[in-house]
């Protein structure tokens, strides 16, 4: 064990962890909106809208994240027509390709989490609102959404942690995130165990923080 290498690589890896957190937070925010949008579509009675939303979540939950990144990064890069459009400004950058892949992936899972949360809301609560003469819109925004978010907290916490680990795949499209920098250090020192232990420790620490924040929120918004 090369302790000196572990200590020396720590600041570099911590710097890279900031990139990982950036990737994670941006894709989670975009993914949450995508997820909410598709969860509402899933609740729609129209069979085409419903099937469309289901198809989206089916495709993105049914294929590996790595394949999704490769299709968006290397796959779309092969289409020549695309390269002359405005879209290429975004798709040219590895960072945005990774964000798009992560956001679409977490969006699919989030839509399922939120859908099931909406469906577990007891009809009695909505009926109570209606009997008080509250409009459907207000019931949806002020009653259904808050309850759904509370219901989905434990599952969504898991999704955040899964996504955090998923961001390590960004290193496959040249992004120097935590895993990317760890691999870079290994390529010059040839000592994978030491560097990956430090990198793994940082991932573990981030999981610890996320886990506790979610636990705190669960307690704060518990019904009891």
């Amino acid at each position, binding site marked *: 064990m090369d302790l000196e290498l572990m200590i020396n690589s720590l600041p570099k890896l911590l710097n890279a962890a900031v990139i990982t957190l950036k990737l994670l937070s941006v894709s989670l925010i975009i993914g949450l909106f995508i997820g909410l949008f598709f969860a509402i579509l899933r609740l729609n009675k129209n069979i085409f809208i419903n099937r469309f939303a289901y198809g989206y979540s089916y495709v993105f939950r049914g294929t590996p994240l790595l394949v999704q990144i490769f299709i968006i990064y*290397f796959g779309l*890069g*092969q289409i020549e027509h695309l390269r002359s459009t405005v879209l290429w400004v975004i798709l040219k950058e590895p960072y945005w390709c990774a964000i798009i892949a992560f956001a679409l992936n977490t969006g699919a899972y989030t839509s399922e989490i939120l859908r099931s949360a909406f469906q577990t809301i007891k009809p009695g609560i909505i009926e109570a609102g209606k009997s008080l003469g509250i409009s459907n819109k207000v019931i949806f925004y002020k009653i259904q959404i808050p309850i759904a978010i509370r219901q989905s907290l434990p599952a969504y916490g898991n999704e955040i942690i899964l996504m955090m680990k998923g961001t390590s795949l960004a290193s496959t499209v040249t992004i120097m995130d935590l895993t990317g920098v760890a691999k*870079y250090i*290994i*390529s*010059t020192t*040839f000592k994978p165990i030491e560097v990956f232990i430090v990198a793994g420790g940082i991932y573990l620490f981030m999981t610890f923080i996320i886990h506790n924040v979610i636990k705190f929120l669960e307690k704060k918004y518990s019904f009891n």
Partner: protein
Amino acid sequence: MNIFKKTIFSVLFSLLIIGNVNADKIKIGTEGAYPPWNSKDASGKLIGFEVELAYTLCRYIGQQCEIVEQDWDGMIPALIMRKFDAIMAGMSITAERQKAISFSQGYADEVASLAVMKGSDLEGMDTPEGINLTLGGSGVKKTLKTLTGALAGKTVCTQTATIHQNFLESGDVGKINLRTYKTQDEVNLDLASGRCDVALAAAVAFTDYAEKSGKPVVLVGPTFSGGAFGNGVGVGIRKDDTELLKAFNKAIEKARKNGDISRIATKWFGFDASM
């Protein structure tokens, strides 16, 4: 229960025997993604200059060989952890790598070059045909200055953990926007898509890609050798494996004398890259 125990025992025993049989073979690690040095054919079989040379060297050593595949960025760690006994993967002999492993004498050498897509503003750079960084001199300095100017602000792509990355990071060509990839295939893809303005690798890696894909990839600037580009390509061997190192050195000597290396090199490169 008895049958269960017997089965487990016999399976373990047979594994032991298989393990012993394999121990007699020299395991050689290669990347299988750096044509014409080493690559894979359509059926997934490993082919290329080094694959053919490896079998030839093993014949001279008088031992059976098995060639195994390993990702480039884990090549040296895998050797150290005894996943295989030798590396033949277009790996140049550099001082940095020699800190971790030993190298046999070089068996082939090949220059590096920058490449762009046709129509790039980097085409027609005013540089000599080739520079040797070890020799140095005013010509080399002037060329590096020209390159520094030309590459400023450009996205330069190369494979990770290579001599090419070392050179680009050495500061010889100033500050550039460097992007590193796991494989040369990915560098080629992004060069063709336009994400990379220019790429650096072994010159044959680009000509091979241009030929096979039909994409208008052209070499620009000088060819590079010496300095960060190392002293030719050799067999990488664990530091404590002195016997094997001796055996490989002898085999390379013999193969060179008999003209085997030159013959195989000419077959795969189209020119004699042996040394």
